[in-house]
């Protein structure tokens, strides 16, 4: 009798113990997926979802750290203020213009660099390294280097122009020239990133397709437009998404080259957000500006993704 009750006790313990441990050590596929995704999901919630929600909430508040007044709910006041703010419109236009100039510019130069890097060089590493260096260089470094390149007296650009018999330009005194210098710097800095993504895409195109096109009678140019370009489309779209989002957030290069000058003619939206939140400590208005930039980035990404889906 005693033996029987002992056995029952052991069995019960085993059953309940087995169930708990089995679920933990040998989870179902769904449970395993949730467990594996959990750390990343928690991290994303902590560093992205929470700050974004907080940002949106702050954008509906009057919160200026210099006023000494506690935060109050302001509704859409920050947004209506924004619509009447000429600097907001100017910086937004500058940001859009930088995006419209530098993204296609970097795409074209990046494509050319990738095609060159994909040529059958005997030694490949110097080519790859020369692509990696501009990409690896911090943005502010690139801005400072190019600020010297475009320096009116000591800069290499004006020096070359003078040697060619062309009068140099005081780059940072003119809104247009300053803008051009910034755009050229951004294109130089970002085309290597484009090139690396396009190069990766190029290397996935089987050589036999070009051989088949050779046999079919297509020349190099036709092969580029009929084979290379259509098959590179996914890589190009990925590169465009990344580059457009970062272009909409342009800050470092104009900040280090011109500080947004002359006046606010080369200031970007990101610089204006920085000015409002860090310099003026107006967190409410700065947050509203940041929400607009966030919406702009999301909008562009959605358009690209829709384009892929439509053509896919």
């Amino acid at each position, binding site marked *: 009798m005693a033996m029987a009750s002992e056995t029952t006790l052991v069995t019960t313990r085993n059953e309940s113990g087995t169930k708990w441990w089995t679920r933990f050590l040998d989870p179902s596929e769904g449970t395993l997926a949730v467990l594996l995704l959990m750390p990343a999901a928690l991290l994303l919630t902590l560093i992205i979802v929470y700050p974004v929600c907080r940002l949106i909430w702050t954008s509906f508040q009057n919160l200026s750290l210099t006023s000494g007044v506690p935060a109050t709910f302001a509704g859409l006041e920050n947004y209506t203020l924004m619509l009447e703010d000429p600097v907001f419109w100017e910086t937004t236009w500058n940001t859009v213009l930088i995006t419209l100039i530098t993204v296609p510019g970097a795409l074209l130069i990046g494509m050319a660099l990738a095609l060159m890097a994909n040529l059958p060089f005997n030694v490949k590493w110097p080519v790859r390294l020369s692509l990696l260096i501009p990409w690896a260089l911090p943005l502010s470094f690139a801005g400072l280097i190019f600020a010297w390149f475009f320096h009116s007296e000591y800069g290499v650009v004006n020096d070359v122009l003078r040697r060619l018999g062309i009068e140099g330009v005081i780059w940072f005194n003119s809104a247009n020239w300053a803008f051009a210098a910034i755009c050229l710097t951004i294109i130089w800095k970002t085309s290597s990133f484009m090139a690396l993504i396009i190069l990766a895409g190029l290397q996935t195109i089987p050589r036999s397709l070009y051989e088949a096109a050779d*046999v079919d009678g297509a020349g190099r140019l036709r092969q580029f437009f009929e084979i290379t370009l259509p098959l590179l489309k996914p890589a190009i779209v990925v590169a465009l998404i990344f580059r457009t989002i970062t272009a909409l957030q342009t800050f470092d290069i104009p900040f280090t080259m011109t500080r947004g000058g002359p006046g606010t003619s080369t200031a970007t939206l990101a610089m204006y957000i920085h000015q409002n939140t860090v310099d003026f400590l107006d967190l409410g208005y700065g947050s509203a500006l940041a929400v607009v930039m966030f919406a702009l980035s999301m909008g562009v990404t959605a358009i690209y993704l829709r384009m892929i889906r439509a053509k896919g």
Partner: protein
Amino acid sequence: MSSVSFRKLEKNYGALRIVKGINLEIADREFVVLVGPSGCGKSTTLRMLAGLESISGGEIRIGERVVNKLPPRERDIAMVFQDYALYPHKTVYENMAFSLKVRGIPSAEIKPRITQASEMLGITQLLERKPSQLSGGQRQRVAMGRAIVRRPQVFLFDEPLSNLDAKLRGQVRTEIKRLHQAIGTTIIYVTHDQVEAMTLADRIVILKGGEIEQVGTPDEVYNSPASVFVGGFIGSPAMNFAKGTIRGGQVMFDGGAGIPLQGHLALKPGGLEGRDVIVGIRPEHFMPAGEGHALSGQVQVVEPLGSDTLIHFALGSSMLTARVAPEMRPSPGETLSIGVDPSRIHLFDAATEKALV
């Protein structure tokens, strides 16, 4: 349609010689298969003919034209690649039309050509699909269709069946043969599969180490292999080889057994006396005991195939395989008594491994 000729064709990669002076004449409308193991230079030879590889020496002619320096598009050839090389972003129709468009052929002419080729290959219903929506066999047919619409002087096939399963390979093989019978264009076909070579070719070119080992009709290379390599390469299961010595009009094996030389082999036994040889016997040339010349050995493994039985047995120090009637099922370890037709054995020189007779 056109003839093709290789004269002293060479391909070197630095000091490495891949193709070592091949001479070959291929007649108009002929179906020639280049066959050999990996690295024998068969694909390189085909690619040199296509213009996809430069040549290091010698001459290639298509018809009367020397094409050594011509780019692929000017050689008037069409090629079916091992991986089919279909343009993944184009539909089947666009794939087939591409070469015609490039050559400036008007759309009014392109459409009937594609219709005709797709009907011939049974791919009419696939014309609007992309390659990713096709099975392996369908892709293979589209690749052939793309070649056919061109109406080139020569078709080149580079191991076109190697990505298909065994059943499909058999079906497509038949289709390729039917296609050649229908259009009659010169075909040069590369494969490592001797069954494809035997079933498709008018003539087989067997390559080894960048050199031609033998050229002949399927019957010639099967019945009169020029070397141990050819004997072992052509035929399935492979030819059996055993070392022996010619003594007194017989080939004697190391275990003491012998086979008298008969037929064409008996014509020069005097000249071969005392010579060390390699004897080649095809598995299918063994006979039931009591027929032919008797041999005996210990059975090692028996493999029933349904249509026939393979018996692996030891003769002296050599392992031989016999293909016999399905009802013959000896047990492993048993002493096998089996006959062999002495007139169908092959003799190769033990040193050079070349055929003696």
